[in-house]
């Protein structure tokens, strides 16, 4: 994607916040920093995590998102946490789910807000301390925060 389009997207998204320039949207770098804080700098593998999210979201105010992690969810081998991250929202971290063997199945769903078209990332922390991720691009037709919250 051209940087000009990205700049324009950010400008429009900023305008939709109807707010002073003090509000800065997250950038991929801010998302990467959030991931680094969550992982403590440990490597993140691709796989094990399946992020299900619409490729085209008509309404960025509420985008149904499901994250499933391939894990037996036993007392000794389970998913400790699932994090949802954005690269374009004002805050990179959308939600963090903390679970354990009592969940039985490592799958969570919620509705998230997306301020612009972007890559959404799901990051999972396993009981052995390893981290895994999945990312999906989402085209947002109506960005969150234009009106109605």
């Amino acid at each position, binding site marked *: 994607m051209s940087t000009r389009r990205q700049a324009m997207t950010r400008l429009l998204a900023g305008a939709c916040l109807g*707010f002073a320039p003090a509000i800065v949207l997250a950038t991929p770098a801010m998302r990467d920093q959030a991931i680094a804080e969550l992982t403590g700098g440990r490597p993140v593998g691709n796989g094990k995590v399946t992020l299900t999210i619409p490729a085209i979201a008509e309404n960025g105010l509420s985008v149904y998102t499901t994250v499933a992690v391939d894990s037996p969810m036993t007392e000794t081998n389970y998913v400790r946490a699932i994090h949802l991250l954005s690269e374009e929202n004002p805050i990179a971290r959308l939600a963090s789910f903390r679970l354990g063997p009592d969940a039985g199945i490592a799958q969570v769903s919620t509705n998230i807000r997306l301020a612009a078209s972007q890559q959404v990332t799901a990051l999972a922390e396993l009981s052995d301390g390893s981290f895994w991720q999945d990312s999906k691009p989402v085209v947002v037709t109506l960005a969150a925060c234009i009106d109605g919250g």
Partner: protein
Amino acid sequence: MALANARVSMPDRAAPGEVVEVKALMRHPMETGYRLDAMGRPIERHIVERFRVRYDGREVFSIDLTQGVAANPFFAFFLKATRTGKVTFIWEDDRGEVTTVTKSLTVTE
């Protein structure tokens, strides 16, 4: 706010070890704090910050929320039915308001 603002859907009985799906819905504006009102004044942030699930007295699941979660936050997740007991759902918002819903889960032998 009353209990009517939050709803939880889950089975009330399950076989030992059965994994049940839980759906939780809360009526809440999840106001981002980025918007302006009609007079151009900033609308104060008002979000649910934490959602917790206790099963038979033990915390088994929780969520930290930000403005990135849509208004009227909805969650679907799973619980493994291991023992008969109360399942308590707790929503805490950034104004100190706490909403609780309690369900009973009976594990049939």
